[in-house]
């Protein structure tokens, strides 16, 4: 069971860290000062959550690896984040869309995870849930503002949807590792969450006057460590300081 829990924690923490890093790339580049700060705040929520999850993963593994070791000393094929998280920021519309699709998933996922029989995991989830409620409020209001805004903002959001919708399937990918944890009451069942997510997303797309892409081939492979070409570049930048100065402390 420790082995499965460790794998599971890596999936959750990798997804948080990678999207947190993506959002941090907006720092100093936001469309207006207020939004720059908003995206950076959200980024910090994700990195903070990743930190708690890695720390717990290190304990579960009990080989003495710290959260820094797990975040900075693993290679691309050893990362298991969902493929949506690593997609580029693109324009502001693409960032907002990626964020909305993620938040709409996390609100249901972390609500379920807060009821996990693993107390530490349930505790981290309950704390995250409050942050996620705000993330969803932020991204939802931007979805409506851009989708139902000008011709230009609607077109940009629609283009983003056509580009990255195919990575949403990887949010719901499961394997036998999950089966063990679901049976133990530790992990929530993703098919229930997928149903709730789809319902929310469909409603939002309609309100934001967007057209859901049809006949999409969902890209998967993250549970086996297979990623899009973007992850390697993220890790190269994110891990460079730690690899140049191993064990460096603030």
């Amino acid at each position, binding site marked *: 069971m420790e082995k499965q829990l460790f794998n599971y924690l890596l999936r959750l923490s990798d997804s948080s860290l990678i999207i947190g890093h993506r959002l941090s790339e907006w720092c100093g580049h936001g469309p207006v*000062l207020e*939004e720059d*700060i*908003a995206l950076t705040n959200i980024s910090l929520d994700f990195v903070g959550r990743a930190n708690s999850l890695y720390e717990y993963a290190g304990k579960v593994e009990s080989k003495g690896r710290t959260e820094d070791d797990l975040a900075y000393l693993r290679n691309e094929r050893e990362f298991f984040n969902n493929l949506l998280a690593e997609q580029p920021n693109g324009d502001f519309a693409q960032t907002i869309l990626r964020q909305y699709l993620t938040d709409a998933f996390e609100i249901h996922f972390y609500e379920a995870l807060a009821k996990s029989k693993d107390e530490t995991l349930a505790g981290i989830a309950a704390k995250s849930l409050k942050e996620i409620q705000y993330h969803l409020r932020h991204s939802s*209001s931007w979805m409506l503002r851009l989708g139902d805004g000008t011709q230009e903002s609607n077109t940009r959001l629609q283009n983003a949807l056509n580009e990255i919708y195919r990575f949403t399937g990887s949010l719901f990918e499961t394997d036998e590792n999950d089966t063990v944890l679901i049976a133990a009451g530790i992990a929530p069942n993703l098919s229930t969450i997928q149903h709730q997510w789809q319902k929310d997303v469909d409603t939002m797309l309609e309100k934001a006057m967007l057209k859901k892409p049809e006949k999409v081939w969902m890209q998967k492979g993250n549970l086996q460590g297979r990623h899009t070409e973007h992850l390697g570049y993220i890790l190269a930048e994110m891990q460079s300081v730690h690899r140049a100065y191993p064990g460096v402390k603030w």
Partner: protein
Amino acid sequence: MNNNQGVLWEVFVQTKPGLPHKHCGSVHAADKEMAIQNARDVYTRRSEGTSIWVVPAEAIISSSPEDIGSFFEPANDKIYRHPTFYHVPEGVKYL
């Protein structure tokens, strides 16, 4: 930074329940929801507050510097308006 940042909103933050909302700055936003979110992100991210008000800056009517004389100076020469003739007992807090 473009010029299309929306209108200006003044932000008031209450630090503890029961205390007055204090002006702490301003944000730009296109609508009410964006204004309250921006205020939250810019002014309360280090848990400075328990409640926020945002007010469109144009809804605030302020006195102008030229008003100082007629508005405020007459109060200065009526010393009986100032509660300075009382002996304050020792140990009294919150005056």
